[in-house]
């Protein structure tokens, strides 16, 4: 058995262990921390599956941002009444074999793969050359399946609208009630002054490198969002009111530029979201830069939650 197989087995056991633990543990706070640990370990598993782009996304979103959201929620819900005892044993007894059955039926096709495995990898590498991009995943995201990516941005905006619509009437247009660190604390202030410059450099680097190597707008935008939230949590900046015009402009800037370039493709390249030959790479980089900003703002506001405080005059 090679050293890499030993590593993979250790990692799979760790993933299964933490995954099971987040489900069975009683304490919700512990379960959430377990989920953060799980997200960080899953990033390593994605590296082992040669999907570095996914690993970057998982480390940033799965571990960091989702963890932050859930830690905030669980801290608020500590005071909640948990009424009604746990689920009845009969339900558990029925559910367990059912879930095992579903897991087994998912595992079966993996254990017995078809003789010929279909792959789009050769097609992608062939068609990647004219675009000038070096990262096949970026090629898929921004050239071959760009409609998906555009609509995904719309989904993010819709989710944000959904969250905002949960605001009480009086708070509409006000500030999101993101919990900040209660007492001003020089240690956290120092971290919030130290980390964001590094994070912004990392975000620009992620966005820039995305055309050639793993990375891109999602990863860069998530880093930006995290740094923004860090500054807010430390109390160095206020959460902006959701009615601010600059905020709304930033939110739609990326998707709008994407849409405009897509529509320009109708004139210049005869198809929606097609790029004129020779100009593909600069256009994609422009879209990625705009999207990085917009994704940063959208993710930050998604994590900040619905407005709770009335608009400041």
């Amino acid at each position: 058995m090679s050293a890499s197989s030993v590593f993979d087995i250790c990692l799979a056991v760790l993933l299964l262990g933490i995954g099971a633990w987040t489900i069975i543990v009683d304490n919700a706070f512990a379960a959430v921390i377990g989920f953060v640990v799980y997200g960080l370990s899953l990033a390593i598993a994605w590296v082992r599956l040669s999907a570095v782009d996914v690993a970057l996304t998982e480390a940033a979103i799965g571990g960091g941002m989702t963890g932050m959201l859930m830690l905030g929620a669980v801290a608020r819900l500590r005071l909640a009444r948990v009424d009604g005892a746990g689920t009845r044993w009969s339900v558990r007894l029925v559910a367990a074999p059912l879930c095992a059955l579903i897991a087994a039926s998912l595992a079966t096709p993996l254990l017995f793969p078809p003789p010929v495995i279909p792959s789009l990898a050769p097609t992608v590498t062939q068609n990647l050359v004219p675009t000038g991009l070096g990262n096949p995943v970026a090629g898929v995201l921004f050239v071959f399946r760009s409609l998906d990516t555009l609509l995904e941005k719309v989904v993010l905006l819709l989710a944000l609208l959904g969250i905002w619509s949960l605001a009480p009437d009086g708070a509409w247009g006000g500030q999101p009630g993101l919990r900040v660190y209660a007492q001003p604390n020089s240690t956290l202030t120092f971290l919030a002054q130290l980390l964001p410059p590094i994070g912004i450099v990392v975000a620009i680097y992620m966005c820039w490198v995305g055309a050639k190597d793993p990375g891109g707008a999602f990863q860069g935008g998530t880093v930006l969002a995290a740094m923004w939230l860090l500054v807010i949590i430390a109390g160095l900046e206020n959460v902006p009111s959701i009615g601010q015009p600059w905020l709304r402009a930033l939110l739609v800037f990326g998707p709008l530029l994407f849409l405009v370039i897509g529509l320009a493709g109708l004139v210049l390249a005869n198809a929606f979201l097609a790029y004129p030959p020779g100009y593909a790479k600069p256009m994609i980089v422009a879209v990625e830069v705009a999207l990085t900003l917009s994704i940063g703002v959208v993710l930050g506001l998604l994590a900040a939650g619905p407005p709770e405080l009335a608009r400041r005059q």
Partner: protein
Amino acid sequence: MDSFLFSAASFVLTTIALGLIVIIQRPADVDHMMAAQLLGTGGAAILVLLAVASKSSAIVDVALLLALFAAFAAVAFVRGAIKSTTKTPTVANGR
């Protein structure tokens, strides 16, 4: 050499995994957060080992993000711990 680096990565992973199993059984939340920090650092170490062992420098970027977001999660934790205890004063003052 590469298989040595893989073995080192497995060793670090096993160490951390065993540590995690014990730590998460403790009652205090702060211990759990230490486990997450341990995994953040250890994950970064494992990833730089993997990056060199499999000669793919892009993996180093994953280590970078892992380190950044482990710190971010810890800040989110500290915020939650402070907030909840200020609301329930009975828990405070355990010194």
